[in-house]
């Protein structure tokens, strides 16, 4: 068996708040192979956000180890983590987090500017990523000129523009209506089918049911690691829905 893309061993995070210790994540040991589509579930305070921050290299663990793509990243400094995030992790957020004054193309290019990619290559890659999410004709639009679903597509294009190993999506459909949400889920499933590892962080069972594997958290601990027998196929669900006029 090949080395998993993500492997953690007794990964823990403790916060010191108001004199007391809060054990946000306790002894997480998991392995996620390349190409997996996984959902992290749990109510707020369960440790799902903490685990996403750790797996996404936004934060460092208090103890334990984390190997991403074979590299131990648990003790890296903030600059090294920034570099890892830039090259290996793509983020998609509930509120899209696009730069309001920049065009779709500029937004998608943003990770590449931090990777010191030459300008022409940046344009090429960003155009390709936008085409891949179906927004090839909206490159010069600003976020205010796009619908919620389109904004999330721009955000996804931004996340995949640097060909990351793993896509971290934090409640990606939380701010969208159900049809648009289904379209976004269909996009994730397609990207996953093309080889990107996808990690969904959600409290929504329906969203989680699109993954092939669900990790359930409670009180900072992993309480269940179950395979989904038959994931929802979002593309088919969209096809069955009543067609809706989409905002320009």
């Amino acid at each position, binding site marked *: 068996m090949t080395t998993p893309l993500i492997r953690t061993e007794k990964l823990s995070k403790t916060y010191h708040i108001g004199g007391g210790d809060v054990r946000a994540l306790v002894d997480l040991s998991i392995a996620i192979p390349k190409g997996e589509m996984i959902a992290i579930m749990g109510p707020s305070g369960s440790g799902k956000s903490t685990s996403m*921050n750790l797996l*996404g290299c*936004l*934060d460092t663990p208090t103890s334990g180890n984390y190997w991403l793509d074979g590299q131990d990243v648990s003790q890296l400094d*903030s*600059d090294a983590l*920034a*570099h890892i*995030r*830039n*090259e290996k992790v793509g*983020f998609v*957020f509930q509120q899209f*987090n696009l*730069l*309001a*004054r*920049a065009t779709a193309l500029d937004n998608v290019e*943003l*990770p590449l*500017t*931090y*990777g*010191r990619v030459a300008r022409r290559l940046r344009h090429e890659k960003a155009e390709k990523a936008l085409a891949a999410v179906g927004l090839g004709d909206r490159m010069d639009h600003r976020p205010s000129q796009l619908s919620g679903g389109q904004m999330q597509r721009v955000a996804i294009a*931004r996340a995949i523009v640097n060909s990351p190993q793993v896509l971290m999506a934090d409640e990606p459909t939380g701010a969208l209506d159900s049809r648009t949400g289904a379209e976004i889920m269909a996009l994730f499933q397609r990207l996953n089918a093309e080889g990107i590892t996808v990690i969904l962080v959600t409290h929504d069972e329906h969203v989680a049911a699109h993954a092939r594997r669900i990790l359930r958290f409670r009180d900072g601990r992993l309480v269940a690691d179950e395979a989904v027998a038959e994931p929802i196929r979002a593309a088919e669900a969209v096809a069955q829905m009543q067609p809706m006029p989409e905002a320009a």
Partner: protein
Amino acid sequence: MTYADCIRAAVTALRANLLRSILTSLGIIIGISSVIAMVAIGAGAESQIKASIESLGSNIMIVLNGSRTTGGARGGTGSNITLTEEDAQALQRDVPSVEVAAPSVQGRFQLVSGNTNWSTSVLGISEDYMTARNWQIDQGRAFNETEFKSAGKVVLIGSTVAERLFPGEDPIGKVIRINKVPVQIVGTLATKGQTPFGQDQDDTAFIPMSTAKKRVLGGRWVKSNLVGQITVKVRDAENVAEAETQVATLLRQRHRIGEGAQDDFNIRNISQFLAARAESTRVMGILLASVAAISLVVGGIGIMNIMLVSVTERTREIGLRMALGARRRDILTQFVVEAITLSLLGGLIGVALGIGGSHLIAQTGDWPVLIEPQAIGMAVGFSAAVGVFFGFYPARKASKLDPIDALRYE
């Protein structure tokens, strides 16, 4: 992130809040433009006064014949002449701080050339006079030693006289008559312009002192050693006041003026008066520039304030940039560059306004302004420094943000 990316990001961010950016820069714009204008005004006034001093002859004092007629009617100068050529020699020999003591005589005469004439002040000068008063020859030559000694019939004329008597002609070699004495023009004097008191210095003619005494003034001057005035050049401008005391002491001794008795001479020290004026102008210039500099600091604080607001407003953007791979250094650079862009832009606009304002003052107020390139360089450099100084703290604050907290910031 490259610097080009940083500048592009900064311009985008500043344009997003265009009015706010302009208002923020306004402090720097006002500061820099007033610094430029104030320095230009100060430097202009200073250079004008300096030029005046130089045209009068630097480090000069003039010993005039006395005021024994004080209380009586004026016009008795001729009868009270006590200064002698020997006085001048003694001053030059015995007062160490005196470089040159040049005696001269003067009178006002009609200069006649053919059928034109012109009344001007005619100076009989000694050999050192031209050096002492910084007179230069424009065309022709100065007097030679023989002409000084043997009352040569030669004359040097100022540019005003040349224009009046020989408009459009070359006066060199022409013969004119001064008080019926024919003299040949051997040279013209380089133009000096007006004194600070509005007197035309070029409306004059020089003849050797011996010529003046023996041929032009005549009468009792012919065999006398008396002189009209002694021009004293002091070695060091700092020593003018000290030299003045020494000159006065020596002259009182030579003229045997007892304790408590009044001087029979007057010492005028124009350059010192002007130097004081230059100094006060300089002090005023410094004061104005300091006030302007304070407004620059205030402008800098305005930038810092807005940058702090901007960092808070854009916390989520900062978090996002960090999530996408921005290092702390990248965030720091981005915000410092933004602050510098803001202040430098203000600085450049300020320089333009300052130069324009200076010209306006020069034209409408008839005030001399002098814009020095180094003042502009300093202003631009200073505005960039203001950006770095006042932008650094907010930028550092931004770069210290925790990406997780920043992303979650509402």
